[in-house]
C-alpha cells in the first residue's frame, strides 16, 4: 500500500473489517429483494421506504457521534415524540418555522443532556434516562396525550407527502444532506477528530490540548437536534404530532450504530456504516412485508420484530468474524 494514496478504501470504511459485514449484508439483502419481488426496486417502494426510514437514519447518525465519545443518548425517542408535537403546533406558520422550531426544541433538550454530562459529570446513561422520562412527560403534557393534527392548509404537508423534483421524498433529501454534512464533520474536521480521540482515550485527548468538553457537549446537542429533526419527519409522515410514538427508538438507533461496526466503548466507527446499519434494519421489515404480500406466509408485526432481532444478532456475529480475520492478518 502506497503511503500517499489519495483514495484509500480502508480509510473511508473506517475500521475496515469492523464495518465490512454491514455493507455485505446490505448488498445481499437488496439483491435478494430485487430478485425475489417484482416491485421491490420500483419507485413507489424506494420512496416510501426512504420516507419512513429517514427519521431512523437521522437519529442513528446523531447517536453514532454520542457513542463514538463512549457515551449514550437514551432520550432520542422521547425527544422525537416531543418535537413532533412541537412541529404540529408550529405547522400553521409553515415549514420554515415548524422545522427549525422543532429542531431547536430537540437541540435544547440535547443541551440539557450536555449540561448534565459535561458540567455535572452525571454518567450519560443516567442523565439521558432522566431527560428521556422528562421529554416523554413533556410531550404528553403539551399535547394532552392526544395526537395533534398538523395544519393541512400549510406548506408543512409537502414535507411528508411531496417530492423533490418529483423524484425523492423531501425527508430523504434532507436526510442525505444531514448525513453528508456529518460525514464530512467526522472525517474532515478537527472537531470530528476530537470526537474520535475522546472515545479512544479522553485523558490523552485532553493532554493534547483538544477541547474535549466542548466536543462532548457538541455530540449531545447534535443528537438532540437530530432527534428534533426526526420529530419533524414523524409529524409530517403521519400528519400529526405523535406524543405516544418513539418508544424503543433509542434502542433501534443503538442497534443501527452497533450493526455498523461502531464500538460501544467509542473511538471507532463511521457515519456511513451507521446509515448502512439503519437501512439494513429497515430493509428487514420491508422484505418481510413483501413476503407477507406474496401470501405464502403471514407474519404479524410481533414476529417481524423477533426476526429483526435474530437478524441483528446474525450481522453482529458476521462483523466480529470479519474483524477478527482482519486483526489476525495484521498482527
Amino acid at each position: 500500500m502506497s503511503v500517499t494514496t489519495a483514495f484509500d478504501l480502508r480509510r473511508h470504511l473506517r475500521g475496515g473489517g469492523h464495518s465490512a459485514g454491514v455493507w455485505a449484508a446490505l448488498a445481499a439483502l437488496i439483491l435478494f429483494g430485487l430478485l425475489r419481488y417484482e416491485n421491490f426496486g420500483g419507485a413507489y417502494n424506494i420512496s416510501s421506504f426512504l420516507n419512513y426510514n429517514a427519521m431512523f437514519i437521522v437519529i442513528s447518525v446523531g447517536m453514532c457521534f454520542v457513542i463514538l465519545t463512549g457515551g449514550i443518548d437514551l432520550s432520542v425517542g422521547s425527544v422525537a415524540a416531543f418535537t413532533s408535537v412541537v412541529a404540529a403546533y408550529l405547522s400553521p406558520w409553515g415549514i420554515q418555522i415548524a422545522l427549525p422550531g422543532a429542531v431547536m426544541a430537540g437541540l435544547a433538550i440535547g443541551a440539557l443532556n450536555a449540561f448534565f454530562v459535561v458540567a455535572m459529570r452525571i454518567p450519560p446513561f443516567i442523565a439521558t434516562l432522566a431527560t428521556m422520562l422528562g421529554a416523554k412527560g413533556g410531550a404528553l403534557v403539551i399535547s394532552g396525550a392526544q395526537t395533534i393534527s398538523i395544519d393541512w392548509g400549510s406548506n408543512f404537508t409537502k414535507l411528508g407527502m411531496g417530492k423533490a423534483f418529483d423524484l425523492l421524498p423531501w425527508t430523504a433529501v434532507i436526510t442525505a444532506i444531514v448525513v453528508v454534512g456529518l460525514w464530512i464533520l467526522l472525517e474532515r474536521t478537527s472537531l470530528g477528530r476530537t470526537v474520535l480521540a475522546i472515545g479512544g482515550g479522553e485523558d490523552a485527548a485532553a493532554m493534547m490540548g483538544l477541547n474535549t468538553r466542548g466536543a462532548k457537549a457538541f455530540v449531545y446537542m447534535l443528537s438532540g437536534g437530530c432527534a428534533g429533526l426526526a420529530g419533524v419527519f414523524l409529524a409530517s409522515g403521519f400528519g400529526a404530532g405523535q406524543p405516544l410514538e418513539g418508544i424503543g427508538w433509542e434502542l433501534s438507533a443503538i442497534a443501527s450504530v452497533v450493526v455498523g461496526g461502531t464500538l460501544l466503548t467509542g473511538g471507532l466507527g463511521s457515519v456511513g456504516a451507521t446509515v448502512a446499519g439503519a437501512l439494513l434494519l429497515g430493509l428487514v421489515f420491508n422484505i418481510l412485508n413483501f413476503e407477507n404480500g406474496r401470501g405464502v406466509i403471514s407474519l404479524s408485526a410481533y414476529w417481524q420484530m423477533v426476526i429483526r432481532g435474530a437478524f441483528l444478532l446474525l450481522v453482529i456475529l458476521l462483523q466480529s468474524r470479519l474483524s477478527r480475520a482482519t486483526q489476525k492478518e495484521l498482527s
Partner: protein
Amino acid sequence: MTDLIEMTGIGKKFAGVIALSDANLSIRPGEVHAIIGQNGAGKSTLIKVLTGVYRRDAGDVRMAGRDLSITSAREAQDAGIATIYQELSLVPLRSVTENVIMGYEPRTRLGLIDWKAAHDRTRQILTRFGVDIDVTRPLGEYSTAIQQLVAIARAVSLKAQLVIMDEATSSLDDQEIETLFSVVRGLKQDGVAVLYISHFLDELYRICDRVTVMRDGRTVATHDVADTTKLGLVTEMLGRDAGEIQAAGLTALSGGHSDPGPVLLQATGLRTRTGLRGVDLTIRKGEILGLGGLLGSGRTETARALFGLDPLVSGQITHHSGAALDNPATAITQRIGFLTEDRKVDGIIPHLSVRENITLAILPQLRKGGAIDRAREREIADHYIKALQIKTAGMEQPIRELSGGNQQKVLLARWLALEPEILILDEPTRGVDVGAKFEIQSIIRDQVAAGLSVLLISSEFEELVEGADRIVVLQDGRSVRELHNPGLTQDALIGVIAQHQNSEVAA
C-alpha cells in the same frame, strides 16, 4: 534431572508471517529463567504457545517428560502453570481472598464456600510474602505492587510448578521490586520455577539463573547468567557487533557540551496538591535538563505542573513569552510538548491511524476553511514516518497494531510536528526494546543539537547521566541539588540521591 518444561522446534505463523521458527526452551524445576529479546523477537508468542493461548504449528511441548497440550487458561492452571501478566488480570472490585481462590473455592460439607478457610489460606500465603493486609477488602484498594503479589499468591495457592512473569516490575518502585524479588527467591526455594520476561538487564543479573535470548522468532542461545556479560547479551539480542555498541556508549545521548542559551522557562517554589513542596528549575534554549530522583520524588508531578495540568498552590512559572501556563492548550500554543510516561493511558489513541495520531496536537494549524488540510496532513505524517523510521504498513494503519517502540516514535513525532521549543519527555524509552531505545535517543540528540530544549525524566540513571547537561535532583517534592555535566557519573548521581535520603532521616 528431567526438565520441568521442554519446548523443542516450536514454529508458529500468523497469516503466513513467521512469528516463531525452531524455537527451543527448557526450564528446570526451581530455577528462575529469563527470556530476553527485542520487541517482536517472539517472546510473548512463545509464552502464549506454552500457556495455550496460541496453537503451535510445529514442535513439541513437554512438562515433566509428558506431552502437554493446553488450550485454555483453566487447563494451564490445572497443569500447574500460572501467568502474571503486565496488565494484571484480576478482578479489582472483589476481595483479595476471592481473587486468590476464584474457581477453586474451598467448600464446607454442605457444598457452600468455606470463607474462613479461604481467608485463612490467603492470609497465610501473603504473610509468607511479608504482606500483611486485610484480605476481605476489595483488591482494587491496594497498590499495583500488592496486586501483583496477590496474583502470585493465587499461583502459589493453585500449587503452580511454573510461574510466568511478564514485565512484572515495569510499574513498581525500587522497594516494591525488592519485595517481589524476595518472593521470587521464596518460590524458588519451594521448588517452583519462574519464567521471567523483562526489558531490564540489571534485574536479570540479580535474580535469574539462566537466560534464553530470542531474535527474529528464534531462540539464539541459552546461558547460565553467571557466564554472561551485559554487552554480550545485548550483542546477541541485536545481532550486532560488540565493538560497534561499545564505541557508541550505553546510550545514544551525550550531554554537557552545549552552550547554554537564553532562559526559556523558569519555575520557582512550585507547590501543588499533587505533592510538590518547593521545586525550582530553569530551562535554557538548546539544552537537556534532567530531573533525577526516586519514584515518588515529584518528577512527573513537576512536568505536569509545567504543562498546566495540575494547578499551583503557590510558586511561579515564568515563560519567556509572558503567557500563563495554566492549561495544556496554552502550553501547546507556546510550543511546549509533553510526551507522557504511560503511553497506553494518555498517549496513543488506539483506533486512530498513525497519521491521525501524529497530527493530533497540531490540528489547529492544519485547519483550512473549516476542514483539515489533508494534503498537508499526509505530508507531515509521511515526513515523520520517514525521519523517525517508524515501522508501519502505512500511515493509515491503526496505531494499536504497532510495536511498543514504534508507538513511542509516533508519539515523539506528534510532539516534534508541533516544532516545539521545549519538549518534556517522561520516561521516553521505558518499555521499548534496545534497538528502538537507541533510535529514540538519537532523535532526541539531533533535535537538541538543532536548538530544542528538553526536560528529561528517566528512571534509567545512565540515560540521565549521559544525556543531561544539568540534572535537578528531586526529593519528596523538593528540588534539593543541581548537578552539571560534563564529568557526571551514575555513582555521583546515586550518591547525591542517597545522601539526601539519609539527611532526611537524620532530620
